[in-house]
């Protein structure tokens, strides 16, 4: 599983303050901690409090690139913020995210092509959040077809079925898991799949427990990547164990350690 660390987000107080005070050390420490815990990419989001996200995202990207060459995942719902981040990118990059709305797709797919970026696409539109599997598949098909039309490889596309909080949308979870599997047959080569994992446990108690069980089930349905907290050791242990059961790695008695040594 490809891990995208979620912790560099202005919504968290320490990161929000660091952005405000332009304190690089906090950001860089957070970046390295996540990488050491297994993150293959770092999500970067200025958060709701940022007054100048267009410049803040550049500052964040530059701070991170000073300490690592890992992939950066530019996270904003505003295309102009993404574009601003792309202008200073040296590392590999993922755009997070587009929706299925044509105006977003028409803006972000060409940007992804221009910057050789991978693209996360949420199966959501201005009409709202899908309520079942079929609506998700319909939106996914729209996204894939836009990519094909614009010559963007579906291998570089990550479809996100929108993991809904179990507390709010319990009836949808099974559909979401099935959508992950069915997204794969929309095109050849298959698009990849990703979830913003923490959303599943939003507002719940026992968040880590809910997150890791959902992740195991999602991986069982073929999930490729997740945006999550890599410092949650139980969560990562669960992901490693799930991949072991799926025969992605050779078993040995110290399989957790072996995975981390890889």
């Amino acid at each position, binding site marked *: 599983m490809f891990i995208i660390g979620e912790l560099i987000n202005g919504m968290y107080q320490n990161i929000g303050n660091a952005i405000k005070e332009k304190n690089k050390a906090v950001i860089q420490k957070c970046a390295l901690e996540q990488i050491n815990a297994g993150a293959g990419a770092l999500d970067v989001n200025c958060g709701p409090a940022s007054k100048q996200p267009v410049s803040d995202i550049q500052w964040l990207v530059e701070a991170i690139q000073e300490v690592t060459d890992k992939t950066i995942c530019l996270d904003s719902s505003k295309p102009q913020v993404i574009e601003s981040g792309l202008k200073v990118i040296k590392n590999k990059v993922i755009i997070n995210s587009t929706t299925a709305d044509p105006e977003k797709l028409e803006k972000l797919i060409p940007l992804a092509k221009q910057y050789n970026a991978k693209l996360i696409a949420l199966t959501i539109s201005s009409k709202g959040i899908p309520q079942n599997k079929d609506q998700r598949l319909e939106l996914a098909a729209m996204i894939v077809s836009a990519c094909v039309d614009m010559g963007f490889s579906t291998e570089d596309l990550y479809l996100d079925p929108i993991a809904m909080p179990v507390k709010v949308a319990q009836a949808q979870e099974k559909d979401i898991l099935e959508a992950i599997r069915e997204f794969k047959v929309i095109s050849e080569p298959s698009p990849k799949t990703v979830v913003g994992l923490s959303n599943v446990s939003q507002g719940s108690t026992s968040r880590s427990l809910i997150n890791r069980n959902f992740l195991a089930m999602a991986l069982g349905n073929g999930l490729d990547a997740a945006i999550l907290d890599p410092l949650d050791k139980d969560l990562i242990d669960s992901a490693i164990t799930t991949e072991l059961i799926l025969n992605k790695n050779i078993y040995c008695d110290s399989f957790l350690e*072996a995975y981390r040594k890889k």
Partner: protein
Amino acid sequence: MATQLIQDKWSGAISTVNIGALKEEGGSRSQVIKIGGEQSLPCLFKEGAIPNKPVIAFEVFDVAPDDWPQELVRPYSDVLSDPFAWAEKCVKTYKAKILCVRLMGAHPDSGDKTPDEEAKFISALLKKVDVPLVIIGSGDDAKDNQVLPAVSEAAKGERCLIGSAVQDNYKTLVGAVSADGHSIIAESPIDINIAKQLNILISDMGLPIERIVINPTIGALGYGLEYAYSIMERARLAALSGDKTVASPFICFAGHEAWRAKEAKVSVREFPDWGQEAERGIIWEMLTATALIQAGADLLVMRHPKAIEKVNGYIENLWKGA
């Protein structure tokens, strides 16, 4: 339509292990043998770099072996009871580039030589021949735990490959090999899970994974060769996909296994349809070795000079495609 080669892209590589240290490196060998380093499955030269050819080590015992079939004894009959002469014959007459010394004489049932005697033997051998050495114990764990550290110290700085560490008995050897600058053979009983676990246990003691060579244990032709092949293939696929814990070169004791096979040694009198035993054993060892090369063997330990000559020719031919 022209045939199109379908090629995989790999993200991992097998580690490279150097055997033997030159004078300027603190040893006294005339050359260094490099094994491993592949970035592709065996012999798929177009798919990724294969920087080192498989190497064959001649197997030498410190005492005359008592169970070798007649055909295998024949080429060494003048030297079997003198390990120094035996080693020199391999190097001078048969052009061995590397030797594998089996310290059988330390075994309680085969002479029970002391650690001190074996250490002196290895010191003397290092003066007689200047090729890199692989050194393996007698197979008696308790005795090997006394003998191998002494031998390791005697060969300090010569960057030998010493074995074998097994899952239930590795700590003493890892400690010695680590301290004296050698590499280690990690042996597992045709079991990929144990091979991986043992590599982790050894590296946890501070010996880098890059100084481990895996002995996956093999079966000769007709005696589980294909099972060994599948284990080696599985390890390679994982290693090339990025699993460093199994990304070690392989050492395979082709001679030891092949010459145990009934087909290699029974006489033509017993089985007239099988042909002359003089050729049969050599063929058995060759076929076992060549299959292992296809499975990814990096270092083959072999016995009959004729079989070794033929397999060396086979390697040269195969590598013409590289």
